[in-house]
């Protein structure tokens, strides 16, 4: 690691001011991805601003839903009974995230902002547009089996690696975003950007903005939500492909459907075509199969990622069958 300074903050205004003074400063919370990036010299901040002192901790419940402070640890979210009951897709996605040790350290906000596992991004001695804009994308024709089949560009095909974001999208979750000047709300779905020709800009957050909380509204489809993660080994690995589904079925007919996939997109990837195929239909095996077929529309696979097409179809189909009570 190159030398950096360290400081703590206790208020959002404070944090923003600090960042303005030192533009190459970065926030650190759980540190589970940050330390990896520092150790491998993928990043070299001037100052680490420890935001653990901000009042963004804990889970609160209201009539409308649940609010998760952005500094809440993943293990605490998983263990929450309301989350398990009302948002099973989230509990499951977190259970399959990283390791118990990492889940005790990693925060909700930091998890959303984790960086890609693209092998060329993580090796600081090879070209990568995300790490050094203009350097070139080595993954296009490289070892890219863990890279994206959706949302890529000639400049970047790095996959968004996380699990939780996919779950949050099918739960219609929103983020509270704070800066020195106030608060705004965005959908989790709108947080991440596709790389285009600026792959180093990964979210719509302004530099001094901080995620303060995740808001989850109660809903019938949230209660019938499922997460399915496919990996090479049985645990402690990022997804080859994952499927998050939330489906409301009333009187045998799908009234609401949200479907997203992980491991396949340059950002958490919602699948609106699949959702449309489900709406106002019964969720039976035939519908699940047809809907799953739609999941790979528009995919742009490389030789190394071709296998993700059938894998995604099967994962979506299986997750839909789970939602339909057919598995």
């Amino acid at each position, binding site marked *: 690691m190159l030398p950096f300074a360290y400081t703590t903050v206790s208020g959002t205004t404070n944090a923003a001011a600090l960042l303005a003074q030192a533009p190459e400063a970065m926030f650190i919370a759980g540190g589970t991805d940050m330390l990896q990036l520092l150790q491998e010299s993928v990043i070299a901040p001037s100052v680490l601003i420890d935001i653990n002192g901000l009042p963004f901790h804990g889970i609160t419940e209201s009539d409308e839903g649940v609010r998760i402070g952005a500094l809440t640890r993943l293990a605490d979210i998983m263990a929450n009974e309301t989350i398990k009951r009302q948002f099973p897709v989230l509990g499951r996605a977190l259970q399959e995230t990283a390791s118990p040790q990492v889940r005790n350290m990693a925060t909700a906000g930091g998890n959303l902002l984790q960086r890609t596992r693209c*092998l060329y991004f993580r*090796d600081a001695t090879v070209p990568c547009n995300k790490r050094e804009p203009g350097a070139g994308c*080595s993954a296009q*024709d*490289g070892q890219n*089996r863990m890279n994206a089949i959706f949302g890529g560009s000639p400049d970047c095909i790095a996959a968004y690696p996380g699990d939780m974001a996919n779950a949050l999208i099918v739960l219609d979750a929103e983020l509270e975003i704070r800066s020195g000047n106030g608060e705004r709300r965005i959908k989790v779905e709108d947080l991440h950007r596709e790389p285009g020709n600026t792959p180093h800009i990964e979210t719509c957050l302004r530099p001094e903005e901080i995620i303060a909380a995740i808001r989850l509204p109660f809903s019938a489809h949230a209660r019938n939500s499922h997460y399915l993660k496919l990996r*090479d080994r049985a645990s402690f690995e990022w997804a080859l492909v994952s499927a998050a589904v939330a489906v409301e079925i009333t009187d045998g007919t799908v009234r609401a459907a949200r479907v997203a996939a992980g491991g396949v997109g340059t950002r958490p990837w919602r699948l609106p075509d699949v959702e449309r195929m489900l709406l106002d239909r019964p969720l039976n095996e035939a519908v699940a199969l047809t809907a799953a077929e739609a999941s790979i529309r528009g995919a742009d696979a490389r030789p190394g990622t071709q*296998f993700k097409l*059938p894998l995604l179809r*099967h994962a979506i189909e299986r997750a839909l069958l789970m939602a339909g009570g057919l598995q």
Partner: protein
Amino acid sequence: MNAIIGQPVSRVDGPAKVTGQAVYAAEFRPHNLAYAALVTSSIPRGRISTIDSMAAEQEPGVLAVITHETAERLPYNEPKQRPVVDPQSGDQLRVLQSPEIMFVGQPIAVIVADTQQQADGAARLVRVTYMVEEPTTVIEISDGKPTSDAWAKAGRPAHTERGDADKAFGLASVKIDINCSHAREHHNAMEPHATIAEWDGDHLTLYDKSQWVDNVRIAIANIFGMPESNIRVISPFVGGAFGSALRTWPHVAIAALAARHVHRPVRVELTRRQCYTAIGFRPRTLQRVALGAERDGALTAIIHEATAQTSTYEEYAETTVEPAQTTYTCPNVRTRYRLVEMNTNTPCPMRAPGVVTGTLALEMAMDELAEALGLDPLELRLRNYAERDEAANLPWSSKELRACYEIASERFGWHRRSRQPRSMRDGRWLIGYGMATAIYHGDRSACTIHATMFANGSVVIRTAASDMGPGTYTSMTQIAAETLGLPMESVDFELGDTEMPKAPVHGGSITMASVGNAVQAACELLRGKLHALGTTTDGYAALMRSYGLDRIDAEAESKPGDESNKYATAAFGAVFVEVRVDPGFGAVRVPRVVGAYDAGRVINPKIARSQCIGGIVGGIGMALHETAEWDERLGRVMNANFAEYLIPVNADVVDLDVQFVPGNDTAFNPLGVKGLAEIALCGVAPAIANAVYHATGTRVRDLPIRPEALVGS
């Protein structure tokens, strides 16, 4: 005599290991220790044009930046005889001696600083420019060259033949001819390699991660042109190695060089990423096996051709084609071994080097032959049972492979296997059963043991051996205690120091047969000396006190006799595996493995079982997970970490059943032991591959078997 040999006693070093008191190489703390960080090349071939260390030198705490421009010239004398663990031809990498670059990750500078953070940070500031030359980064069979005469002399010739295999294959009633491959694999022992070097005048002490401290001493003496007697190498605990700590790697020389440069002790600890380039690896190998057989299954021809990778600067060859010559009875066998020189670090032995991968190819081909013949795979093995070693033309010193087959197949329930592939299911899961034979040649080397009995009744046994995990400390303590008729608590077995008597390499499954027999010999000698004093009813301590003796010493060497002229020796095993494949997802899970082994006499069944379950886990990784993601454009391993280079985790391992067939191979050595470390890995990966075929009907011949190969199967 109290029976200690054969008892499942707990490890004598267990308390040290579970309390964090066992000290590994990087954990020694000589006074005033300084910390090093390596700067490594980012190109696969070329020359350093400029190396700018100004910024690094100005960092706080930095004591030195040593490059090929500032490092002392080292003589690198050729050893009288190269150790078997080293490449037999070519030149080892001479650290910081020239601007030439031969592979990505080659150390090109070392930073020494007061703290590890300062050294690591400064290493990022060294700016290097290169003259890039065209590298070789692809392994192609057509580029393969025969191994050199030096390797032929060392027993790994480019060509062997008995009978006329090609003719017999042409005439065979049933034929199988397959190509297969496995990935470049990395040892990835949990402990990263590390060396601490400390000079005292012209004397050097090295705290090193090593499977062979005596060899480190010889290697460093030659590199630095200094007497061996001025070097001491200490390595009491090794945090796993699997072959990666057999050789003396460049960073060991760098530690010594850097320590002399800054006049302080220096620690070099590799990062996990550097463990993919600063040490060796199992070379990717492309293989062809052709089998010819009669209709009744009798093998008439075996042709085995292997092409492996090596570096451009050293020739490393393996025994890949050996199992084809010895596993089954067959009159016509031809083998061919080729090497492709590439811009990479040099490969090195990794658990059951060569044999495990050769067995992989042979046993996958046998499975295909069984299918072509309509025979049960186990039945095909039994019909080709080798009653002698037909390559050496000698009888086996012992062979209980039939018992291995019987016990393992019985416990596994092999009879429940349906003949048809893809015919066994559990819900949506496809179930597959597969099996394979395992064989690993037995060997032993000379070892000297010094045994001392003190007047308080305690015994200290010493030799410069190693314990990277199989339990040398424990099993040798058992042998000593039983031989002396003492409780284990009275015996201290010490190892891992060149001040101790000479021991052979801790690899190739030879430790028990080599060190174990020497322990027995030394303890018998000691017992004889004690008995010569008089009666021992009150115990040895009383006897010694009555003679006013503080201590009695005995030293004995045990070495191979002429048994290898009379017998061939090998350990054997039979491995049966159940796999489950979800056809939609293509991922393979292994719920059950049964292995039965003939390893001769088992000194400690508890720790022997641990070694076998460890081998099975390694085999699961080899079959399903492990592969270096090699970028041919860059000439480098891209997934050089534990998150993307996958090894099995706890959740991948379910039900493992290990059985030892009773054995006592006294024709091979007095203790009757054979070897265990390598045989435990051999056979697992092909059994899994064969089970995957049985489950899915898809033959996957390129390992690892990942969802890519099976999704939608």
